[in-house]
């Protein structure tokens, strides 16, 4: 009990003396970063997990690209399951002169089987739980579509051939809840109206779903039955496998944010280690006296460990409270992107962040504090007796062990942790090496400079260790922010620039065979474009050289996906201009009755297709088998319509086909699109520019959340900067006094401080610019395959921002030396 009292007393005393403030600040920051990200990801993932049934709007969903067969419906009925069908597809919604691409869902009575559909009768009006689905001839839409089309309840919305009356506004839709990124607004219609719209014809791109509900056993039995029958090509979604792609995306986001936080925690750890080194040095005398008075080594260790633990717990709590506020900020950054309100925060992320804070403080400070037990009581007589400082090897190992312990906690994935961990260490080592080089160069440069610069640069070089820490701490944060701001927009622009002028900006899909000739003429006349229409047939590759295709045979994720999904087959009589044959030859001029395929090289590689291989496709229940006659390369950047696999003319005759085309339409002719929808109601228009804009907007919001996290990194960098300044506090005081006694005025001392921090900031900024440039080159070259363009702004903004930050903080942290009385030089014998 007495030890605890002593620890509290010591804590109070040291706090008043200002010895612990930086450790406290670093702890608060680390825990705030950990808890805000932890709370945020927890809320998002709970939003998805907690309502898995609701996400499906059913207990089991069978999904197909073909209409749900009556046979399947009857079997579901026989199993005693509740059932309802829905069909989802994209189509243009038209109101007056306004057009908008919408996600249409046709539903029938009973929808949703699980969860609630909520609507209101006016924009932002009171919500009501829907007990029915839209009546015949009416649509329910979400607020986004109303705004886009500028319509109100009672107005007319045209979908395909039918004019619908807008009846209600959708405020909440269960099976949309998990979609973090909603690309197009929602339109709900009655399934009975679907045929009349003429929007769905054989071959149209649509998702047909059968929603099922019932007792767990009945559902499981039915699922088994369907799974056994693979020929149907049904995608089965149960509660457990609801939205796997979303979960994966979320997991990645969680890991990425978690690991970004680790960078901030590592920097806070560095600050804690530095501050506790000073704390230890300043407690040698106290410990010597305590030992002299009979305190055991155990007492000393216990006293300081306990003091640190209490400090860690108190300030971790404060950090968690700030983190709670921080996560509200994070959530608001994503506003409008999440389709539903997030559940309230839970306590676990807060507790785990507090625990992590305590671990961090202990791991980074104890190796230093441990030296205090070695202080000899003889020091009271001989002040030069000091224990050997903590071996840097031990401090370093303890830091690594602490981070290694905290990292998997954040990422929850060992392999990723190791990659990230060593990547981080590597980056830090590279930055440190760069910093050291910069510091050496500075040391050389000082010979030719005046007194202020010489003294400032000499200080940078003399305190090389803390200079490296400062450069590292600030450089890391600024690198990350440069990447997120400049490099991100650079990459996007560089991609857009690559598109030649006149690159198609509109796609028309779902063109019905009967409309082909008329549409071709219409486009020639109205859009002044001589664009070609290409047929396409939805098909699934079932066999390769007679062997049934098994997704499990492929390790690559893309190949797995290609092996399971349907894709579009086309036919063509001639090779497209942006294609080139790289193996084999085009079809024979005279048809020889055989079926041939032309395969795009990348998909050929992924799926292991070679020249003369025999491919079997399943199209609407029929099997088509043919030989690979050539492999071709495709220039995808042209934005022309292109196909992975094409067949020779005649090979796909009699199969349900729709046509597709792309063309460039200058914005002043945009109104022509309304006539396209009027004359060819089943055609869907895809506006590429709008899609790019949506993707850009989403990227922006997501990167703002990441910027938020890297904001913590930058703050942590500042704390490190302060910690290093604090460690040099006594030295600086004495030196300033000596300089003053030699006749230096305040101005001269201020100039030398400015020179020191300018140099440090410049080195950090140049390294940050170098780091961001290197990473953007790597991204352009190896990830996005884009031409790399050097951004001069990086080299201006990087050094400028770092210099300002380091200069500002540095001067603020050392300005006290300007007021040191020169007598200190005499007193400090």
């Amino acid at each position, binding site marked *: 009990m007495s030890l605890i009292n002593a620890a509290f007393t010591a804590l109070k005393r040291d706090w008043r003396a200002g010895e612990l403030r930086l450790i406290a600040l670093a702890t608060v920051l680390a825990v705030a970063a950990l808890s805000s990200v932890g709370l945020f990801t927890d809320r998002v993932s709970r939003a998805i997990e907690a309502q898995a049934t609701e996400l499906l709007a059913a207990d089991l969903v069978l999904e197909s690209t073909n209409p749900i067969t009556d046979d399947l419906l009857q079997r579901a009925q026989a199993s005693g399951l509740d059932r309802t069908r829905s069909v989802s597809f994209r189509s243009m919604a038209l109101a007056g002169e306004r057009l908008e691409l919408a996600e249409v869902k046709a539903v029938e009575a009973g929808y949703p089987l699980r969860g609630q559909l909520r609507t209101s009768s006016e924009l932002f009006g009171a919500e009501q739980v829907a007990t029915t689905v839209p009546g015949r001839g009416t649509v329910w839409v979400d607020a986004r579509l109303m705004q886009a089309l500028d319509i109100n309840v009672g107005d007319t919305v045209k979908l395909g051939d039918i004019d619908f009356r807008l009846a209600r506004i959708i405020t909440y839709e269960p099976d949309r809840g998990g979609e973090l990124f909603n690309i197009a607004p929602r339109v709900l219609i009655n399934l009975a109206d679907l045929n009349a719209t003429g929007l769905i014809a054989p071959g149209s791109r649509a998702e047909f779903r059968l929603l099922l509900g019932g007792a767990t056993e009945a559902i499981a039995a039915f699922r088994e039955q369907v799974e056994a029958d693979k020929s149907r090509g049904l995608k089965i979604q149960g509660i457990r496998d609801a939205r796997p792609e979303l979960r994966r995306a979320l997991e990645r986001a969680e890991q990425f944010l978690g690991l970004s936080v680790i960078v901030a925690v590592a920097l806070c750890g560095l600050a804690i280690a530095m501050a506790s080194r000073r704390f230890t040095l300043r407690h040698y005398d106290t410990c010597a006296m305590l030992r002299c008075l009979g305190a055991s080594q155990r007492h000393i260790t216990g006293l300081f460990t306990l003091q640190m633990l209490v400090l860690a717990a108190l300030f971790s709590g404060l950090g968690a409270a700030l983190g709670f506020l921080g996560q509200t900020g994070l959530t608001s950054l994503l506003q409008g992107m999440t389709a539903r309100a997030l559940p309230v925060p839970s306590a676990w992320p807060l507790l785990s962040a507090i625990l992590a804070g305590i671990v961090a403080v202990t791991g980074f400070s104890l190796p230093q504090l441990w030296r205090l037990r070695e202080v000899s009581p003889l020091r009271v007589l001989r002040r030069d007796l000091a224990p050997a400082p903590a071996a840097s090897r031990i401090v370093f190992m303890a830091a690594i062990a602490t981070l290694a312990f905290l990292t998997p906690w954040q990422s929850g994935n060992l392999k990723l942790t190791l990659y990230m961990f060593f990547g981080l260490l590597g980056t830090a080592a590279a930055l440190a090496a760069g910093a050291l080089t910069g510091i050496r160069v500075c040391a050389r440069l000082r010979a030719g400079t005046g007194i202020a610069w010489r003294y400032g640069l000499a200080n940078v*070089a*003399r305190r090389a260790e803390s200079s490296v820490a400062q450069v590292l701490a600030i450089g890391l944060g600024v690198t990350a922010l440069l990447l997120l701001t400049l490099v991100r927009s650079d990459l996007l622009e560089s991609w857009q620039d690559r598109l030649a002028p006149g690159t198609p900006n509109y796609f028309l899909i779902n063109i019905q065979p009967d409309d082909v000739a008329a549409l071709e003429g219409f486009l020639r006349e109205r859009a002044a474009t001589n664009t070609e229409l290409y047929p396409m047939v939805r098909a699934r590759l079932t066999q390769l050289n007679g062997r049934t295709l098994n997704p499990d045979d492929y390790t690559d994720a893309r190949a797995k996906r290609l092996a399971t999904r349907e894709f579009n087959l086309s036919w063509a009589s001639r090779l497209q201009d942006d294609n080139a044959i790289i193996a084999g030859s085009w079809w024979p001029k005279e048809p020889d009755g055989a079926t041939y395929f032309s395969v795009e090289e990348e998909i050929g590689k992924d799926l292991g297709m070679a020249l003369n291989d025999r491919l079997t496709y399943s199209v609407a229940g029929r099997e088509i088998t043919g030989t690979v006659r050539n492999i071709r390369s495709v220039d995808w950047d042209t934005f022309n319509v292109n196909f992975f696999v094409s067949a020779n003319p005649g090979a796909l005759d009699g199969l349900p086909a729709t046509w597709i085309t792309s063309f460039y339409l200058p914005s002043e002719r945009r109104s022509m699109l309304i006539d396209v929808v009027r004359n060819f109601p089943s055609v869907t228009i895809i506006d590429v520019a709008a899609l790019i804009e949506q993707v850009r907007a989403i990227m922006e919001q997501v990167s703002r959340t990441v910027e938020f996290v890297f904001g913590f990194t930058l703050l942590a960098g500042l704390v490190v900067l302060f910690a290093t300044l604090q460690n040099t506090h006594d030295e600086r005081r004495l030196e300033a006094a000596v300089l003053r006694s*030699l006749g230096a005025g305040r101005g001269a001392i201020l100039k030398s401080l400015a020179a020191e921090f300018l140099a440090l900031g410049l080195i950090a900024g140049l390294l940050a610019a170098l780091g961001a440039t290197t990473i953007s080159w790597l991204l352009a070259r190896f990830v996005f395959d884009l031409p790399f363009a050097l951004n001069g702004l990086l080299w201006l903004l990087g050094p400028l921002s770092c210099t300002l930050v380091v200069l500002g903080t540095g001067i603020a942290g050392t300005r006290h030396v300007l007021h040191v009385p020169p007598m200190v030089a005499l007193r400090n014998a």
Partner: protein
Amino acid sequence: MNDAPGVIVQARQLGKQVASPGGTLTILADIDLTIAAGESVAIIGVSGSGKSTLLGLLAGLDLPTSGEVHLAGAALNSLDEDGRAAIRAGRVGFVFQSFQLLPGLTALENVMLPLELAGIEKAAELAAGRLAEVGLSERLHHYPRQLSGGEQQRVAIARAFACRPQILFADEPTGNLDQQTGAQIIELLFRLNREHAATLVLVTHDPAIADHCGRCLTLAAGRFTGEARRELD
């Protein structure tokens, strides 16, 4: 107050008091002192007698609570800290007990400091010359940590004489050195002082060192208690 010709330091009714938990503490009181240019004066006294405080006041490192100090013709009381620093630059040299070399600068750069602060040109050349005078031409580019205590104090002496100052203040210059090295340093200090014809004000507790000076003032409990003069060779 007009300074008499040839007077470099004049102190009148100098007093220094500091606040302490037990009330006001008087460190110095009623100090009157005139030092002529070229004189060498030792201030001797036991620990806590106020020697270093007096030195600081005479050099303008600190301000008195009462009385006034004139240094090199300037009334220090009327100047702010930067003004006093400007008076010191180029005119005043210091030798400290713990050398007080700047650890980040080489021996040469340390000696260049006062030259540059006084705006004297060719600082590097002059500094190298001063280091040669103290026998350290081979150590120009060494850092303080690479030098012995005696060598560090030689650098400090070279720095003190760098600007050919009118007056040199030395605070226990041998306090951190062994006896033999201390004797060499004292010998060097006085030789240079003679060569440069500078005024020397030296604080020490060692009567043997004080014997080198033309005048010796004894300080006890913040007041002068004795003065001795001797003819120097």
